[in-house]
């Protein structure tokens, strides 16, 4: 009869549910106690291709503006002039609006050196919006000029290899056939 | 004055009764009238119990009161049902509007 069947169903299913929740009393909580009670920083556990806050390694930026052009919402502004005398590119300004950025990664894809890249950093909360604009160029600096063969400058080499490694993460287009 | 006796309770009872009577008389609102009736019933109940305590009649007074309370509940249930019925029929809760019942 439906009446007693209902009673039985109710009791048995609730019993089963209670058993499951009881089993959770001895399971380990899944919580990662960010920020302080953890063994390794969260940032270090994130994959290399994690798209956190953007960063620019000015040492290896060629000033090619590829990133500025690739960004669909114009949150990168670069001023790069060619120095008339030395024929060198000089970066006057390299600003990224992290408040506006959508962390899509479209800018780092075309960068020739992996200078602009996403880091696993994500802590950027602040009290004002202005402080979310990252201005990388403090004073005009010469842009990086790629050289043939491996980089020799010991200061730049590790940065460049990091950048190239970052670029390697992106898939290489191949023909479908 | 400090010794609380029968008269104290009777006084309270009379005052409640008066308030109840006044409510019944002045309200046109049926639910208000019902509330007045509750007051009157309460005052009667206080009397019952006061007399049963000071008159030494055992449990009779209390049992009377229990039945009174029961009847009050029954009265409230029926009374409110009627009030709501009237209200629905005549879209008002004025007691006098029920005169139309006769007409």
């Amino acid at each position, binding site marked *: 009869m439906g009446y007693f069947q209902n009673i039985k169903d109710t009791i048995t299913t609730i019993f089963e549910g209670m058993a499951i929740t009881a089993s959770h009393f001895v399971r380990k909580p899944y919580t990662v106690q960010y920020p302080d009670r953890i063994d390794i920083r969260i940032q270090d556990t994130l994959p290399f291709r994690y798209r956190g806050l953007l960063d620019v390694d000015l040492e290896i930026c060629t000033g090619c503006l590829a990133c500025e052009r690739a960004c669909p919402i114009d949150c990168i502004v670069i001023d790069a002039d060619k120095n008339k005398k030395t024929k060198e590119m000089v970066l006057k300004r390299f600003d990224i609006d992290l408040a506006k950025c959508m962390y899509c990664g479209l800018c780092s894809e075309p960068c020739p050196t992996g200078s602009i890249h996403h880091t696993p950093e994500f802590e950027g909360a602040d009290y004002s919006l202005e402080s979310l604009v990252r201005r990388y160029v403090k004073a005009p600096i010469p842009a990086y000029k790629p050289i043939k063969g491996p980089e020799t400058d010991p200061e730049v080499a590790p940065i460049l290899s990091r950048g190239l490694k970052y670029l390697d993460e992106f898939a290489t287009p191949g023909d479908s056939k | 004055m400090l010794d*609380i006796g029968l008269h104290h309770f009777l006084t309270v009872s009379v005052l409640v009764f008066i308030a109840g009577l006044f409510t019944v008389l002045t309200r046109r*609102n049926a639910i208000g009238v019902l509330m*007045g009736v509750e007051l009157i019933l309460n005052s009667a109940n206080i009397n019952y119990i006061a007399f049963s305590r000071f008159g030494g009649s055992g449990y009779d007074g209390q049992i009377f009161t229990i039945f009174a*309370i029961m009847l009050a509940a029954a009265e*409230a249930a029926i009374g409110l*049902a009627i009030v709501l019925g009237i209200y629905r029929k005549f879209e008002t*809760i004025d007691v006098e509007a029920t005169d139309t019942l006769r007409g």
Partner: protein
Amino acid sequence: MVYAALFYLIAGLTVGCALGVALSRNVVYSAFALMGTLLGTAGMYAFLAADFLAVVQILVYVGGILVLTLFAIMLTHQIADVEVSNRSVGRLPAMLIVGVVGVGMFTAMFRAPWKMVEPGEPLPTTYGIGESFLGPYLLPFELASIVLLTALVGAIVLSRKEIRD
């Protein structure tokens, strides 16, 4: 002394709230004032050593009848809006009637030669009441169930009928 003070406190609550019921213009306020009176009455019962009744008073009156009344009021918002402009009996005549009745009652109360016995030590009453129900008051007790049944059926039929037509 404390006993008296408590009595006056509760008596004040009872009478004050009763007046509130009588005088408040808003039915909802009246209903909530009624709760004060009912609680005060329960207190009176307690003073009169009727502990079971005091509790039943709260249980049935506050928990049942008052809630039912409140539901009825909330069901029909116009009840709270009804302006009592032309009463069935004006306030003044009502005062008069009430005054006369009151004076009469008070006179009766104080004049009457009440036969009084000294109230004994207050004792639990529940058991005695139960015994009476099973003994001398058996018939009313069983009748009560029939009354209740009738009230239930009657009230239900009334509200249902009124709703359904």
